Structure formats: structure tokens, C-alpha cells
């Protein structure tokens, strides 16, 4: 039966799977320790490589298949104790995994392979032998020969031959699922067949076991058929029968080959969850729909509440029930997007491994709380900042072994990454036990770089936070590893973009800790609803420090523009949204008329903090707190500076969610007109 199947339809699944395989290989390679023999780890790596090899060649990626075969050969030698685990081999295998990853990316994007680096690594792999295994060399070379392909070339040999085949199956042949009749049927497809059955071994009826095979056959086959084709028919029963294949003219007999077996296959247990694959687009769409449902739900609530006491009790009960169901549904849906932070940790061990070797430092990595879950989007975006902080910790934190020893510390430095839930947040702490941050050097640098001037009045914490300023780098010589053009300012920016914050604490000689606080999800937000003129805004609750009655007496205006408010022991900038967003006073809207006629405008100052900065937003009224579903403004309208998104409130009106970080930095830039939104 000929079937036409387009193999490219499976490519995406293959790529996804191969990348997972590569991740497993990398992770497990990093778990391998030189001089040990952890067969479980080696088997896991082998299996991943083996699986990639098999699928790659099946789906037509021969180069990937061939390259993976080279890796697999080395792993097989490791598995069979023909090679020893050395640091050199681990490093070689790691770079092979990198190369494999690059090959996959090239295939995926339709680019050419970087053949020179593939060849280099293939050669290194093929030529690698640990000293102990030099004797195995010859054997290795034989194993590395390309695997035989299904041979059809001989079929072109068109000479008609006569074959005599003696086929006497062992009694237990049926127990392997084979059946002599099927084999004879297959032989029939090769040429003209004459079959003679031998009943010599057929026992008496009383001793006959119907599950045994007692018959033998002498078969004459005539056709344009070669020995290999016949052998292939009997390949599966080789060893389970007495077989001779004789060319009537050539009289060639193949020996009855029976190989000895090798030890039973090793097993490994794994906890793997059963799962289905769903595209993230579908999940996001589902989440979006649930968001709509939550909004409709709150509109329904407020409609019902405005109906007054006459509304039926039953309706209220139903609404409450619906609200609970909606919440559960929303939580469950959001949990689909939640992934263990493990995913973001994946690259870290490799980086620590490579960097510490490159710099001659001894570094141990400790990962704690890897199963802590957070939103996929947050997870994807936290990877880079995390990597950067770890690089930094090795580059600038952990000292050289000798330096550590002379400081009375263990030569081995420790970097700990700990993830945990704290309230509605995920907190990530990246700590090292290195030399800590030298605030004096930092200050000098900041002054030199004109980030601050001589007569500053900064606390220790503020000085440390200077490293987050754009254009700051303390390394005397920018190493090729840390200095990749991304500064700590970008790290902080990435984190704040996610609605998170980052803080440093450090003690000279003891070490440093970076604490990253992240929201669990980007889909919903606990917000404070505030009124400014005819507009309603949402301020993220987590950034609010407190809300005060605005006292005009406590303000100072400097440079005729900057308005500062005395907040506790410092002055904080005041943001007037009327000006920043060019808002009209509340005369146009009916609801606002209601508010302004019943309540006096209050002039409240909502003080918020982002990072180490405080600022206050002046608002007319604070209405309440609510969990809001974030709708992207960018997707639905356009990016507006100072606004992270929008939401729909219970009364059906749209409220903008303020981006307090941007507001506090851009407050004096030209006003953005809100009336166009």
C-alpha cells in the first residue's frame, strides 16, 4: 500500500520535542561529576540523544541525525564503561549540545548549517578517548561507522537465480509472535515458489501441542532475487530456526548465527505527568474570555445593586453563586499558564559551570524552590535578568579561591537562588557569599560618571542602588562575559516592566543579595481606584505606600516647576495627573457631578514606591480597591506613556491603569493628551 504523507506536518512537534531533549541533556550533563559513574544520569542523557537521533532522521533531518549519532556513540561508551567521565568530556558534550541546538535553530528558520563548527565538534567527539579507554579505540572506530541503510542497490542485479531454502523453525517460534506461513507468504512476493513441507518432527496426536511449531519446509525460490533479500525475510526468526539458504549454482551457505546476549537493559523510573499539549494562544484566548466573564459578572453585580431593595433575594443568591464560580474558573484558567520557575533556572547551571571554569573560580550553585509556579509570560521574561544577576555574582561577587582563602572563607563560593511565594508575589533571591559591594568604589565611580555630584546625601542603600543607573559599570576591566552590553539598568527595567521590583542588600566581605519581587500573573491586578477630574484611574495596590490628606503647607516648589512634598523625613515629587494627562476638571461627567455635589473634592496624595523611589500622585478621590482584569492598551489602542493598560469597571466604564514607574520618571515631560484615548 502506497501512502502519501507530508512529513513536514510533524516538524513543529519534532522541534519542540528535540529542544526539550536538549534541555534534558544539558541539565543532566551538568549533574555529571568527573570521576563518578552515575548510570541513571548517563542513561537519561543517552535516551534523550537517542530519541533526537531517531526522530531527526525519520523526519528528514539527516545532518542532525548524523551529528546526534556522534554524541550518542560517546554516551554509549560511557554507558558501557568504555569511557570515563572527565571534565573535558563533559565540556565537549556540552558544546556538542550547544551545536545541536544551533543546528535545530537553523533547520527551524531554514538557514544553512554552520558546517565548520559542526565538523570541528564531530571530529573532537570522534577522536575523544579517555586515557583508560585507549585500548577500546579500535572498537570505537568500528562503532562509529555509519549505520547500514536499507539495501536496495543489490536488487538492481537482474540475474534470475535459483535458491534452495531449508527452513526448520524451533518449536517455540509462535511464542515470539512469528508465523512460518507469513514468512512463506513474504517469500512468495520475491519470485516463483515451490514449497515442500516436512512432517518428520510432528509428534503423535496425543503429544501434540497446538501452540508449538513442528513443521519444516524445503523451499525452492526462483527469481531475480539475491541472498540479502531472502535473509531479510528470515531476519526476525534468525536464531529461532535452522535455516540454510543455498544458491543452487553458487552453493553458498550462510552459517546459522547465534550471538550471545548482553546484560538486560537498564531501567529507570521517572515521574512524568500525563499531559496534553495546547498552544499558548488558546490558553491566552481562554484567559481573555474569562476576563470578559469577570467583567460581565461585576457589571451584573452593580446593575443588581442599583436595582434597590426590591430585587429578589433569589437573584442575589444566584449572583453570588455565579461570582464564586467565575472566580474559581478564573483561578483555574490562570493556573494553566502557571509553570514552575524551574524553567527559568534551566540555563543557570550551565552558565555557572562555564563561567566558573573560565574564570578559575570555584562556585557551587544552590537552587531552592524550583517548583514555585508563576505566570508563563513572567517566567519567560525573568530568564534574562536572572542570568545577568548570576553572571554578575560570579564576575564581581565571588572572589578567586586564593583571595577567599586569605579572607578566611571556604575556597568554594556559593550562589543561592531561592524562589518563594510571599503574599501575592513571587520573591526571587539571588545571593552570593562573595566580596559584597564596596560602596566607596561605587560612589567614586558614580561621581566619575556624572551620575551624582560630589555633595550628595545618599544612604548606603541608595548608593548601592546606583548600580541600576544607566551607564554604570564597576568592573575595572569589562570582562567578555559580563560586559555584553546589558547593564543593570536594563535588568531593573525588565523587572519593572513585569510589574516587579528589585532591591539590593550587601555587606562588604560577606556577600550580596538581590531580591526580585514579581507579580504572580500579569492578567489581573489588585488596584486602587482613584478619581482625577472626569477620569477614573487604577493604581497598582502593591506599589502604594500610603494615602494622605494633601496639605499644601508641606509642599515646596523648586525651580518654579518641581513640586516637592514633605513626606516623613524626605521630599518626594508630586505628580499632578491634571497636568500630566491634560485632564479636564470634573464638570462633564454625570457621575462626577454626583461626586462633586455630594462630596467635597478631597485632594488626596497617594504615595507610592518603586524601587527606592517615592512619589505622590495627587487625586481628587479614592474610591475603592478592586481586583481588575488587565486589558492591553497597546493591543487595543496604542502605547500610552504612563499607562500600563486599561480595565473595565463594574459600571462598564473604562479605567486606565497607571504605570507609576514611568510616571515618576517622566512626570515633567510634555503632557500626553488623554482626551484622544
Amino acid at each position, binding site marked *: 500500500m502506497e501512502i502519501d504523507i507530508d512529513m513536514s506536518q510533524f516538524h513543529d512537534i519534532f522541534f519542540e520535542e528535540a529542544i526539550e531533549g536538549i534541555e534534558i541533556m544539558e541539565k543532566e550533563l551538568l549533574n555529571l561529576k568527573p570521576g563518578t559513574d552515575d548510570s541513571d544520569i548517563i542513561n537519561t542523557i543517552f535516551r534523550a540523544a537517542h530519541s533526537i537521533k531517531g526522530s531527526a*532522521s525519520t523526519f528528514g533531518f539527516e545532518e542532525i541525525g548524523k551529528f546526534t549519532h556522534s554524541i550518542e556513540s560517546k554516551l554509549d561508551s560511557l554507558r558501557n564503561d568504555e569511557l570515563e567521565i572527565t571534565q573535558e568530556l563533559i565540556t565537549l558534550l556540552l558544546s556538542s549540545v550547544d551545536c545541536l541546538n544551533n543546528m535545530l535553530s537553523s533547520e527551524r528558520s531554514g538557514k544553512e548549517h554552520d558546517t565548520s563548527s559542526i565538523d570541528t565538534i564531530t571530529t573532537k567527539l570522534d577522536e575523544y578517548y579517555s586515557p583508560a579507554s585507549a585500548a577500546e579505540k579500535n572498537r570505537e572506530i568500528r562503532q562509529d561507522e555509519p549505520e547500514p541503510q536499507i539495501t536496495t542497490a543489490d536488487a538492481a542485479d537482474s540475474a534470475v537465480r535459483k535458491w534452495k531454502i531449508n527452513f526448520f523453525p524451533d518449536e517455540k517460534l509462535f511464542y515470539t*509472535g512469528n508465523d512460518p506461513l507469513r514468512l512463506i507468504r513474504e517469500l512468495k512476493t520475491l519470485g516463483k515458489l515451490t514449497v515442500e513441507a516436512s512432517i518428520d518432527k510432528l509428534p503423535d496426536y496425543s503429544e501434540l501441542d497446538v501452540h508449538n511449531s513442528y513443521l519444516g519446509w524445503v523451499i525452492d525460490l526462483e527469481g531475480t532475487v539475491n541472498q540479502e533479500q531472502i535473509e531479510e525475510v528470515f531476519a526476525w526468526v534468525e536464531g529461532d530456526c535452522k535455516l540454510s539458504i543455498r544458491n543452487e549454482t553458487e552453493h553458498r551457505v550462510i552459517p546459522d548465527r547465534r550471538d550471545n546476549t548482553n546484560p538486560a*537493559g537498564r531501567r529507570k523510573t521517572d515521574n512524568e505527568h500525563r499531559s496534553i499539549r495546547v498552544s499558548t494562544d488558546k490558553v491566552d484566548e481562554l484567559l481573555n474570555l474569562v476576563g470578559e466573564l469577570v467583567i460581565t459578572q461585576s457589571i451584573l453585580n452593580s446593575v443588581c445593586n442599583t436595582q434597590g431593595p426590591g430585587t429578589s433575594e433569589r437573584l442575589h443568591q444566584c449572583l453570588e453563586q455565579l461570582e464564586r464560580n467565575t472566580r474559581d474558573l478564573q483561578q483555574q484558567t490562570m493556573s494553566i499558564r502557571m509553570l514552575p520557575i524551574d524553567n527559568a533556572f534551566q540555563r543557570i547551571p550551565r552558565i555557572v559551570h562555564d563561567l566558573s571554569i573560565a574564570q578559575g573560580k570555584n562556585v557551587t550553585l544552590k537552587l531552592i524552590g524550583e517548583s514555585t509556579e508563576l505566570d508563563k509570560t513572567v517566567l519567560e521574561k525573568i530568564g534574562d535578568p536572572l542570568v545577568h544577576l548570576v553572571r554578575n555574582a560570579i564576575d564581581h561577587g565571588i572572589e578567586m579561591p586564593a583571595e577567599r582563602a586569605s579572607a578566611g572563607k571556604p575556597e568554594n563560593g556559593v550562589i543561592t537562588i531561592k524562589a518563594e511565594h510571599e503574599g501575592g508575589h513571587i520573591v526571587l533571591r539571588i545571593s552570593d557569599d562573595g566580596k559584597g559591594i564596596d560602596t566607596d568604589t561605587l560612589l567614586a565611580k558614580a561621581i566619575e560618571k556624572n551620575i551624582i555630584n560630589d555633595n550628595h546625601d545618599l544612604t548606603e542603600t541608595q548608593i548601592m542602588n546606583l548600580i541600576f543607573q544607566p551607564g554604570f559599570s564597576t568592573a575595572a576591566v569589562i570582562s567578555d562575559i559580563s560586559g555584553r552590553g546589558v547593564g543593570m539598568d536594563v535588568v531593573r527595567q525588565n523587572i519593572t516592566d513585569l510589574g516587579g521590583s528589585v532591591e539590593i542588600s550587601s555587606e562588604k566581605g560577606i556577600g550580596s543579595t538581590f531580591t526580585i519581587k514579581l507579580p504572580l500573573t500579569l492578567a489581573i491586578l489588585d488596584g486602587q481606584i482613584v478619581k482625577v477630574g472626569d477620569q477614573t484611574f487604577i493604581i497598582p495596590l502593591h506599589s502604594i505606600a500610603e494615602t494622605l490628606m494633601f496639605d499644601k503647607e508641606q509642599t515646596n516648589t523648586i525651580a518654579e516647576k518641581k513640586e516637592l512634598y514633605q513626606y516623613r523625613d524626605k521630599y518626594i515629587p508630586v505628580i499632578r495627573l491634571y497636568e500630566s494627562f491634560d485632564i479636564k476638571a470634573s464638570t462633564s461627567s454625570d457621575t462626577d457631578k454626583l461626586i462633586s455635589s455630594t462630596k467635597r473634592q478631597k485632594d488626596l496624595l497617594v504615595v507610592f514606591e518603586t524601587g527606592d523611589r517615592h512619589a505622590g500622585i495627587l487625586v481628587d478621590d479614592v474610591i475603592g480597591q478592586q481586583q481588575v482584569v488587565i486589558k492591553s492598551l497597546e493591543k487595543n489602542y496604542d502605547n500610552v506613556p504612563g499607562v500600563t493598560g486599561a480595565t473595565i469597571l463594574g459600571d462598564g466604564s473604562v479605567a486606565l491603569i497607571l504605570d507609576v514607574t514611568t510616571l515618576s520618571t517622566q512626570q515633567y515631560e510634555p503632557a500626553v493628551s488623554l482626551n484622544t484615548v
Partner: protein
Amino acid sequence: MINILLVDDSVSMREMVSFTLNQAGHNITEAEDGVQALEIAQSNTFDLVITDINMPRMDGITLTAQLRGLDDFTFTPILILTTETSEPRKIEAKQAGATGWIEKPFDPDHLLATINKVI
């Protein structure tokens, strides 16, 4: 139409084999490793089992041996789907009771041709 139990930890391979066999009009049940396959085999019978060798939890050779211990699978053809072309591996599989093997890489036509040898 025959009922086939397909065991492979690789989703892409499962999809491909499944798709091909479906096209040929066969009925496929999938399992992602030996353990799951064995669970399925406890309460179902099949005309053919196709299994990968290298899988987590339980490999294909162990699965084959286990299946042969079940009454319903004593004579069922079991094909090993594998890249292992080395002789010892095949013999190991055969000793466990495997009927034959399908070597990767294979194309859909080769797969169907091989399967037709045992049905």
C-alpha cells in the same frame, strides 16, 4: 482494520506513526511508555504491538517480556521500533519475545510494508 498498540515516548514519532497507520485504516491506541502500555494491556487486546526501546519508566524490551507473560499477548506480534541496529540489542529484544523490528529512520511506506509482514 486491525487494532494496534503503539508505545513511544516521543510525541513526534507517535504522531507520525499513528497518522500513517490511521491513513492505512488501522485503529491505534497510544501509550507513552512501558508502564502505561502495560496498564492498557491489562484490559485490552491488540492484533499488534509496536514499541520503542528507549523509554523512561519502562523500556520496550522489558515491556515485551511483560506482555508475553499476559495470556492475551502470548502470540501477539510485537515489533520493536528502534534505531538500535546493533546485533546484541536485537537479540536481547528477541529473547524477551519480540517478533521483529522496524528500524528508524523509516518512511511511512516502509512502516506499512513491515507491518504487513505480520498481519
